[in-house]
């Protein structure tokens, strides 16, 4: 993990422990947006992870069904070739099964 990832994760955890109890956990997804963000940043790096998280928050509104929406796994080969993949990789991932 690089410093940017650490900073982002620190910020998210801080949010979870301070602001979140106030405004309530209102996420329509599982895992929640903040947990999703931590995982996304850890898995996909600071830039892509942040973009994925932002897109997830934007989707987390009453007009979206919500539900189970895990962080998509990193595609090993592809990721190396195209590191700056578009954030829209978030929504159209299907969990295995």
């Amino acid at each position, binding site marked *: 993990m690089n410093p940017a990832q650490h900073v982002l994760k620190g910020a998210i955890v801080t949010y979870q422990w301070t602001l979140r109890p106030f405004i309530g956990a209102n996420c329509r997804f599982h895992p929640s947006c903040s947990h999703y963000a931590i995982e996304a940043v850890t898995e996909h790096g600071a830039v892509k992870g942040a973009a994925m998280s932002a897109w997830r928050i934007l989707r987390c*509104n009453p007009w979206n069904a919500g539900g189970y929406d895990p962080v998509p796994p990193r595609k090993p080969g592809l990721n190396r070739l195209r590191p700056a993949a578009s954030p829209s990789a978030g929504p159209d991932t299907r969990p295995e099964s």
Partner: protein
Amino acid sequence: MDQKRLLAAIALSVGILLLFEMWNRGNAPVPPPRPVATQQADVPLPAVPAPATPQVAPGAAPGAPQAAGPGETAVTAAPPAIPAQRVQVENTRVQGALTARGLSLDQLTLRDYRETVEPNSPNVTLLAPRGRPEGYFAQWGWTQADGRTPVPNNDTDWTVTGGPLGPNSPVTFRWDNGQGQIFQAVVSLDANYMFEVRQSVENTSAEAVTVLPWARIRRERTPQVQGFFILHEGFIAVQDGRLTEMTYSTGRDEGNSRRALGSAWENEAAEGWAGLSDKYWLTALTRLDRNERIRSAFRHIPDAGVDRWQVDIAPAAPQLIAPGQSAGFGSRLFAGAKEVRLLDDYRDRLHIQDFDKAIDFGWFYFITKPFFYALDYLFILTGNFGVAILIFTLALKILFFPLANKAYKSMSRMRLVAPKMQEIRERYKDDPQKMQAEMMALYKSEKINPASGCLPILVQIPVFFALYKVLFVTIEMRHAPFFGWIRDLSDMDPTNAFTLFGLIPWDPPLFLHLPIWAILMGLTMFIQQKLNPQPPDPIQQKIFAWLPVIFTFMLASFPAGLVIYWTWNNLLSIAQQWYIMRLDAKAQAAKPPAQGGTGGAPPAPKGGGKLAGPAAAKK
């Protein structure tokens, strides 16, 4: 065991916070408004604006022997015996005096503002003469840029024409240096807080001279600051559209690290102003001629253990005045209260760039400024700023009701199925993957949207923060009464549970301050929390449970207006949530769902056949 340790940690943290608070207040210098019989010019003014020319050393080095300007030459052993001539300053809003010795505005009281809520308390004193601990003044002068032209200094007795200074009655100060240069300053004042000073030098000698005119604000001590991150106090400037804020402590650090340069901050710009900002008061300088570039600086001057603060402006370059010619510099000084509409007016009419930013509206300027206007409108309408706060908060809540409605609706349904969820959680606690799948299947079968989502909530945060900020910074809240015992919304609620509200005659330390409104705030917060779903994490749950207590103590010494706002906001949230839950419960009772949405006893666990794949739950 861990929880006990956690609780101990929380208790300790709260204790440290409170102790810090107490220490902070205890250490803050209390303004001594004692009338000291002062003598002029007995305190050296070591710093003058650094001339732009490099051959003249910056004047910030205290007591340096260089003849850089009035500061150094003013270090005299004995002050002159004759009292300085003073020129009265008066309009309907201010009262004060200029001193003809050293040409400075060193006395100014604001007639519309009093120090305390008591009706006969003294008016707020903004400026005070040099030599007093609370010394705070504006001064105009010149620096010799050619190293030989005698310029006026702190002991110079100027010849006064006119006076007293008031709207439409300017005063002229004149001084002849005896070597052919005649210095002049024409001071005028508008109907509010704006002074205008036109400095000029007429060169009647046969040789050209080079001087640098300047205007400065000087503060002889560090004022008591709130030290709170949402309010800026200290140096402030807008230069070419860019806002620069520097606190006193940063100013000290910057001043120390830039000691050789003589300033904590320095900038040349085509447009702008610079000054010193308090929570409610401001002194600021800007140039008069819109086509002239100015150089502005913040300075920290350590002087025998006392921090002195200075803001100065000057033309971008020294002025070369040929024989028979004259040159001038015009500047404006604002010294008064940061009334939003007045600053707006100066910004538009006198073209002082972003002058309203002297009020710390913050990052959310585009929300906070309109909020201010709305609150001000309600204030004028109702005549009570507390009532204005209540009405405005209610209006905001109504505006956000559709969003929140959706949120609370799902939240209350969530509570009804909570036992089932708990059941699933326990059954599959060894298999998180399966647990989530079950959970999503439950959501699907109950047709619940667990929440309204993060986005609607996140949208509301800046709005309510902006309101909080407006309440914190606006002068309208100052000395504004509310009902009952609240006589000043900007001050803390004076009641205290630890004295049984005045029954026990003792004066507890500040961390044992527990006023009624803070208790009400804590109660409403507690109830609101009870209506919210608990966070899943047990440690977080514990913290959650302690938050109302922590916040009650933390907000105890906050301005009462903010605590009232917070309480009212909680109360509205509770009412809203209770209303929606009741509606929802009715709807549930009207058409009993297959799974029985009673929320009472946990229903029989669902079989595996109910288990839908997570992918199915998604669509």
